[in-house]
């Protein structure tokens, strides 16, 4: 809401500059978002001039060379192109040095060979009116003696107006009018508030014979008022009105329309002017529209309505969409002489729905949808009547149509003094509470434990409970003085849950191994699923779809972290960063089948591509592959002490992975069955290629499931005081015997004395023969009772060798 400051000061004029007013309004809840200067930035060099002569320019048909008296010894020569310029006119002149609204500085200039010492101004050049008719002729505005040539122009016209732009919160439609803001300023500063400008009504009540109005839907139209004006002369508005509307951001149109806008800006109540002679049958009906009914609105468009929208119609059908926009057919025209002014109250939610459904938002609908008080109708009628009589030469037909009448007065609310302290934590003297509320137009009576408060009509929707009154008291009393205390925090013990700690530790573990976290979009495109080679019936295709996405690219919720990991990898590779080590820890989404909103879980996804470490002057580089991500996965899982393993998965399960280099990740807690945590593998080359990546390896696990199998508290396990006995064993086996089989069998055979067994070398080649490979095992034996000797473990070793023979193994070298 843009409020020209001089207009505000007409109703409340604290002895404060604009910065101090900004501070007071902002700190009491009416936030000043910006302060502008409308018109010219400085008033210097803008003066009143009188044209002494206007001669034809010797070298240009359309220009005149004017001799202009500016109150100096010598008149100035000014070249002017306006068709209406003539000798004898009093005009507005910008002299060299004047700064125009767009910031350009006027200079003496030669126009077709004649030096012009300034410029004769049109309204639009000062941003105080639409212009269009040439230069402003001020003859009718000046009074001799006060406005001699040379007089600063701002003494006559508001050419430089401070405008404050306010953020009005949706609960305060009363502040969508200048007077409402003035009341806030009054409460916030204590400066006097002028009487409400609508107190004296030049009109009369009673029946109105010129027109008949019926309201068929009083539920959607709580009040409808109308007055009729005759002998109206449509003309331009006076300069002050045009300047004021311009400063408030409204385009002046003609006197009648400008009056409706001006009254709306002052009172907050929109009005609509009908040309009564264009209202067919001289009868208006307010009713619900018929489904599919059409109306042509003021902006020239045809709108199709539905049965929940409200129209005002006459003998020829709908003539306007109630509360949203008037119709073209009954619009005020230059030849209009009889005007019907309508001021009505509409149901807020209904107007909101209509304007959204039609995509048609107006100054009026923006106010109506927030819920106006029926009382405001007559405020607006009163203000408009005065202006119609003064500015349009109109005569008022006696009587006022008023269907619905004023709103129902709300019951008083009790404000307990104790409650103010309990909620705010600061004592506000009861006298001050009453003062504040009265400044805001509430009525207060003392009560046993505080005040009995009556809410003014304009605040009826917003203030319905004691807590609402406390807010009013608090915001005006000022929150600056509120002490800063801490709550008692009974029973509060700040801590993370186990699942949250697991997430942090998992993230920190991969960060410690040199990976960078990325954060991707929750949205993705349906095409991702194709690029991941997911068949139609794949479970990852059970996605959550966004009904109203910003674009197709963001139309589904991601079912996997892979999309954002691959996108981030490509982004960086294409910026010459070929080696990628990234992860994401975030939510993935699947459509739920069990009546829940959706299946959301927190995943950890890792992606490696290119070299595992930067090129260096020493040390070898190795490439991201299956085993690199497996080692990373191991680092996480072993951090939590979970038992885990990988198993081969059918290639259809994760079709985006390399079918020969991928696996399922299983983990189990101390007692539970193994659960599937996710997948691990190299990307299918076709998928990596779709993101312009080379060899790429990845895993993704569900951190929620990991938290379930990871022990919350780890218990101490005795490791004894006797040293570990280490022995190595190299065995040649057929290649199709898996490492897991070997390790499993070794453990099973050796029993509890074998503490650990690790594979520390793998060899395939001519020395071991076709189809065979050598595995080197590091065995660690240990006893809790004594130091083991080679003799102790010799039988165990022999048993292991025998067992491995059954898998086709033979001891090497």
């Amino acid at each position, binding site marked *: 809401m843009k409020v020209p400051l001089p207009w505000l000061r007409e109703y409340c004029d604290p002895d404060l500059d604009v910065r101090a007013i900004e501070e007071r309004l902002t*700190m009491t*809840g009416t*936030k000043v978002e910006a302060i502008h200067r409308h018109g010219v930035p400085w008033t210097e060099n803008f003066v009143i001039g009188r044209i002494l002569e206007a001669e034809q320019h010797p070298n240009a048909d359309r220009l005149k060379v004017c001799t202009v008296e500016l109150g100096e010894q010598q008149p100035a020569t000014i070249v002017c192109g306006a068709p209406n310029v003539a000798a004898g006119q009093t005009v507005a002149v910008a002299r060299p040095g004047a700064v125009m609204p767009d910031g350009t500085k006027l200079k003496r200039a030669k126009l077709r060979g004649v030096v012009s010492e300034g410029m004769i101004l049109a309204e639009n050049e000062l941003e105080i009116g639409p212009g269009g008719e040439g230069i402003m002729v001020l003859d009718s505005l000046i009074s001799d003696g006060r406005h001699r040539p040379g007089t600063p122009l701002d003494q006559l016209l508001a050419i430089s107006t401070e405008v404050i732009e306010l953020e009005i919160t*949706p609960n*305060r439609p009363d502040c969508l009018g200048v007077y409402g803001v003035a009341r806030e300023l009054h409460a916030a500063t204590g400066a006097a508030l002028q009487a409400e400008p609508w107190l004296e009504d030049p009109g009369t009540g009673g029946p109105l014979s010129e027109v008949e109005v019926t309201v068929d839907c009083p539920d959607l139209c709580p009040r409808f008022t109308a007055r009729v004006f005759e002998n109206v002369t449509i003309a331009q508005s006076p300069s002050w009105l045009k300047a004021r509307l311009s400063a408030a951001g409204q385009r002046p149109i003609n006197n009648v329309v400008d009056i409706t806008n001006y009254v709306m800006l002052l009172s907050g109540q929109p009005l609509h002017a009908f040309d009564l002679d264009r209202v067919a049958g001289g009868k208006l009906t307010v009713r619900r529209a018929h489904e599919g009914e059409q109306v042509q609105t003021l902006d020239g468009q045809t709108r199709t309505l539905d049965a929940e929208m409200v129209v005002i119609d006459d003998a020829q059908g709908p003539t306007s969409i109630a509360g949203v926009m008037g119709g073209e057919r009954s619009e005020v025209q230059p030849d209009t002489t009889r005007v019907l002014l309508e001021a009505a109250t509409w149901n807020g*939610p209904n107007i*909101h729905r209509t304007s959204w459904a039609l995509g048609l938002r107006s100054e009026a609908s923006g106010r109506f949808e927030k819920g106006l008080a029926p009382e405001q109708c007559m405020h607006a009628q009163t203000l408009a009547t005065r202006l119609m009589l003064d500015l349009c030469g109109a005569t008022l037909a006696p009587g006022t149509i008023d269907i619905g009448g004023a709103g129902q007065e709300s019951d008083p609310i009790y404000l307990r003094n104790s409650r103010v302290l309990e909620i*705010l934590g*600061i004592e506000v003297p009861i006298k001050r509470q009453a003062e504040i509320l009265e400044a805001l137009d509430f009525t207060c009576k003392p009560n046993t434990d505080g005040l009995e408060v009556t809410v003014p009509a304009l605040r009826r929707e917003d203030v319905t*409970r004691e*807590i609402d009154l406390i*807010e009013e008291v*608090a915001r005006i009393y000022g*929150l*600056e003085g*509120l*002490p*800063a*205390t*801490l*709550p*008692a*925090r*009974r*029973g*509060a013990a*700040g801590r*993370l*849950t186990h699942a949250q700690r697991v997430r942090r530790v998992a*993230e920190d573990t991969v960060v*410690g191994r*040199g*990976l*960078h*976290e990325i*954060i*991707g979009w*929750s*949205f993705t495109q349906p095409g991702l699923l194709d690029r991941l080679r997911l068949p139609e019936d794949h479970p990852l295709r059970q996605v959550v*779809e*966004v009904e*109203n*996405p*910003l674009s197709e690219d*963001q139309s589904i*919720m991601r079912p996997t972290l892979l999309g*954002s990991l691959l*996108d981030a990898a490509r982004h*960086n590779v294409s*910026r010459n960063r070929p080696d990628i*080590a990234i992860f994401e820890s*975030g*939510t993935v*989404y699947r459509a739920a089948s069990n009546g829940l*909103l959706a299946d*959301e879980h927190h995943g950890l996804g890792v992606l490696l591509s290119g070299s595992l*470490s930067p090129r*260096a*002057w*020493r040390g070898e580089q190795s490439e991201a592959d299956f085993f690199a991500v497996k080692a990373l996965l191991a680092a996480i899982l072993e951090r939590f002490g979970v038992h885990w393993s990988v198993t081969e998965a059918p290639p259809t399960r994760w079709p985006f992975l390399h079918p020969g280099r991928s696996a399922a990740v299983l983990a189990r807690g101390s007692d539970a069955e193994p659960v599937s945590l996710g997948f691990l593998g190299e990307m299918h080359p076709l998928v990596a290629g779709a993101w312009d990546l080379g060899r790429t390896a990845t895993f993704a696990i569900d951190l929620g499931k990991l938290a379930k199998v990871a022990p919350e508290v780890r218990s101490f396990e005795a490791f004894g005081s006797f040293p570990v006995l280490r022995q190595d064993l190299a065995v040649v086996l057929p290649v199709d015997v898996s490492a897991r089989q070997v390790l499993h069998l070794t453990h099973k055979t050796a029993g509890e004395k074998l503490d650990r067994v690790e594979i520390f070398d793998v060899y395939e080649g001519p020395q071991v023969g076709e189809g065979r490979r050598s595995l080197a095992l590091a065995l660690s034996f240990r006893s809790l009772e004594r130091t083991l000797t080679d003799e102790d473990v010799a039988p165990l070793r022999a048993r292991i060798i025998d067992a491995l023979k059954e898998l086709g193994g033979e001891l090497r070298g």
Partner: protein
Amino acid sequence: MIERIKNLQTQAEAAILNAKTSEELEHLRVAYLGRKAELPLMLREVANLEPALRGKVGKAANQARQTLESKIQDRAEQLVAEELDVRLQADSIDVTLPGAPPQPVGGLHILTSTRRELEDIFLGLGFTVMEGPEIESVHYNFDALNHSPTHPARARTDTFYVAQDELLRTHTSPMQVRAMEAHPPPLYVVIPGRVYRRDLDATHTPQFHQIEGLAVDEDITLADLKGTLLSFAQAVFGDDREVRLRPHFFPFTEPSVEVDVSCFHCSGKGFLADGSRCYLCKGEGWLEILGAGEVDPNVYSHVQTNEQNTPGYDPEKIQGFAWGLGVERIAMLKHGIPDLRLYYENDLRFLEQF
């Protein structure tokens, strides 16, 4: 003879001290203490001396031998150390070459590290951390939070819907009622999470992150809100920070406030040392950081009483505050990040900076 022993000792000591290498020292040992050397010879012949001299000479010679042995030992150690030193000095490297093999340095995304920093601050203030669904019902997102049926945020131009009554939550606030339904009062929780609004420009991304705060007990005042947020603001932006509450409107708090922190760039003055306007707070001296307020009593009435939260939330008996802050905004202010879109581009040149 004793004289001779003394002379030999003096002579030998001087020589030992002057020995420059282990080799030279070994020659000296042989020369003075070896089998054919004079001192051991004397010792061997002590027995042939007349009895009166035997004791004196024997003792003197023995002492001399022991002294020399220990001096040689000391000197030997000294020389070994010196020689090692010389060898080590010759074995020098270019210490300015980079470490190898290189250890890659990873990092958390700035939004994660900021979120964790904020979580930790509130953990320290006694709040626990809760999370909730991002795909949410209209009930928890709007209705239970006292949004009027016409609240503009409900519009499909502003909010993403996935079904008639299901949406992508527009704030972390739906967790207020969910948290209260899961726990009886007193309740102190913060709820970090991802939220969605239908906006995209330099100052809006369709997804962003919030941290909701909720404290409900019998006696939690607006002053308590101020104190809690003051502690928070000082922990994030420095001990000298102040906060101010500006009245505002939110459907689910009453009274509602917006909270500003005094600008840490210009110390709240609005201008810098050179007199220019502070770019961070745009001369205001204050930075808006979040919205908050006392929980509106209507919100409590939407909390279903159940087994988990018995005795439930009676607005006449309990009261509390809530806030919602933007993680992106805090990180932006603190680290001078100019454009929200940088957060989601995942350019390593950005990620590596934090």
